[in-house]
């Protein structure tokens, strides 16, 4: 081995060993488990072929959670995108106190989903009269709502969506702000000379197209985050919830609940992984991932 080759392995070796042990082997093992009946054991002996997959794909609960979270993603992704971009456009135009407002919107990024769930569940959307939302509604003579206690009507979505917006928007606003700052000013000057009105026209023909690369990245990150939702659902609705059950929460119940059913859990995890890959690639196709910025 030449000295350079040795240096390459010296630098990358520790990481690659870890990657194989903690990423590639678990995926491989999981693939293997998914073809076996594996309840409470990780070295199963009963080969069952594709039946774990067939079970999961004909399992109403699992399929339902995949469908619900496709709808959830289709809703939360554009809303988060629009709110983050809107905040960025506003903050970008501020002349004084810009750093202050940027900090205020960015600050929730420091808060965990668990702590946010606590505030949302026990204070803002507390189902009794003393919750903030019910207090404010009381001022206008509206009856208290028990936000999280039942799926009909599905008020829990309001709780979950508002929590997600609060936690996520500041982070994506920072990405948009950085992108806005890197748009060359001469583009706007040229547009002004050509008679474009500032406002909607410059946004439509200059700002928005210039944000393309950032937009693609933001939508990608948001999509992946939506399918991996777990923390706030677990903490708002409880670990044993049967409604508002995210795919990960369902897999958690299957694999780490009473049955410790690793076979079905692994099959479901792989189905979810493939679904996320497909959605990611599709959105890349649609939005033109990897296309040049200009």
């Amino acid at each position, binding site marked *: 081995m030449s*000295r*350079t*080759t040795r240096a390459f392995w*010296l*630098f*990358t070796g*520790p*990481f*690659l060993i*870890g*990657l194989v042990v*903690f*990423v590639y*082997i*678990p995926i491989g*093992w*999981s693939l293997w488990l998914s073809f076996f009946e594996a309840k409470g054991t*990780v070295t199963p002996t009963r080969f069952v072929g594709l039946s774990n997959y067939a079970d999961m794909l004909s399992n109403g609960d699992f399929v339902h959670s995949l469908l619900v979270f496709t709808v959830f993603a289709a809703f939360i992704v554009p809303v988060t995108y629009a709110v983050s971009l809107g905040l960025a456009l*506003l903050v970008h*135009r*501020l*002349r004084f106190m810009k750093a202050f407002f940027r*900090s*205020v*919107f*960015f600050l*929730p*990024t*420091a*808060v965990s989903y*668990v*702590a946010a*769930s*606590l505030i949302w569940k026990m*204070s803002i959307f507390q189902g*009794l009269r*003393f919750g903030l939302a019910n207090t404010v509604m009381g001022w206008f003579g509206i009856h208290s709502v028990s936000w999280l206690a039942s799926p009909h009507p599905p008020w829990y979505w309001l709780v979950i969506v508002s929590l997600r917006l609060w936690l996520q928007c500041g*982070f994506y606003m*920072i990405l948009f*702000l*950085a*992108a806005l700052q890197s748009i060359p000013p001469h583009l706007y000057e040229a547009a002004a000379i050509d008679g474009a009105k500032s406002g909607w026209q410059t946004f439509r023909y200059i700002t928005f197209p210039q944000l393309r*690369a*950032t937009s693609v*990245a*933001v939508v990608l*990150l948001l999509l*992946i985050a939506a*399918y991996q939702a*777990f923390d706030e659902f*677990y903490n708002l609705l*409880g*670990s044993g919830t049967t409604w508002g059950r995210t795919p*990960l929460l369902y*897999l*958690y119940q299957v694999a780490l609940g009473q049955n410790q059913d*690793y076979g079905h859990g*692994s099959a479901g*995890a792989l189905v979810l992984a493939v679904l*996320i890959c497909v959605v990611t690639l599709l959105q890349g196709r649609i939005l033109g991932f990897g296309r040049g910025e200009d």
Partner: protein
Amino acid sequence: MSRSPMGRSRLGSAGIYSAVAVAAVLFLVPFYLIIRNALSTEQDIMGAAWVWFPAHLQWGNFGELFDDTSVPFLHSMLVSLEVGVLHTLGTLLVCSLAGYGLARIPYRHANKVFYAVLATLMVPASVTFVPSFVLVSSLGWVSDLRGLIIPGLFTGFTAFLFRQYFLGFPKELEEAARVDGLGYWGAYWRIVVPNSLNFFAAIGVITFINGWNSFLWPLVIGQDQSSWTVQVALSTFITAQTINIHELFLAAGISILPLVLVFVALQRWLVQGVAQAGIKG
């Protein structure tokens, strides 16, 4: 007929400032609620009339929380701190070395290795929590710091960010070091790392925040109370409801405080780091 450009922009900026102010108030409400609830009595929180701020701040709530032996709160903070620091240092070490190797050291199959790293970005880490748990439990690392820390060190995304960063690192600096007889290893530690501290700090802070706030993996691994991180402890308090509401909010407030301080102190670095990490990713 038409307003002067000056007048319009003043009107426009009044509109912008009111919109931003309203949004800012909404964003701050949850922080207000934490502080209010943490320093109130039970009656003030659950009373018939809304109390904007308790007439007497209940500093005694701190003692109540820390003395409550049924609640392993302080211990869980220590676990989180230990996990957070070790996880951050380990990630910086392992991922930066790999990023440098991939960016700078010529090797015939370097591209193939890089693709093997990139491929893992397609599979979100939390989807593999079932198989990872299976692996970690067969290593005997359940309810163990090793199980909490080690599997999370090998993040393809972080290694990828370091590679991108080192690709843009000025080559001349390293070449000067090579002339002085330093190998890759010496040049890396004496020249490259000391000149990249900003980037290391930004990635370090982001890694620490993500580690501190992560929930699913610590929940799966932390099956004994002694290995609960603060997030797992908080979550248990929410569901078990064996704890007073003001203690609960005080605990949440204390768990958020270190990160809020980091945020305020390192705002500039963080913003740059996030922007860099997010856009390049």
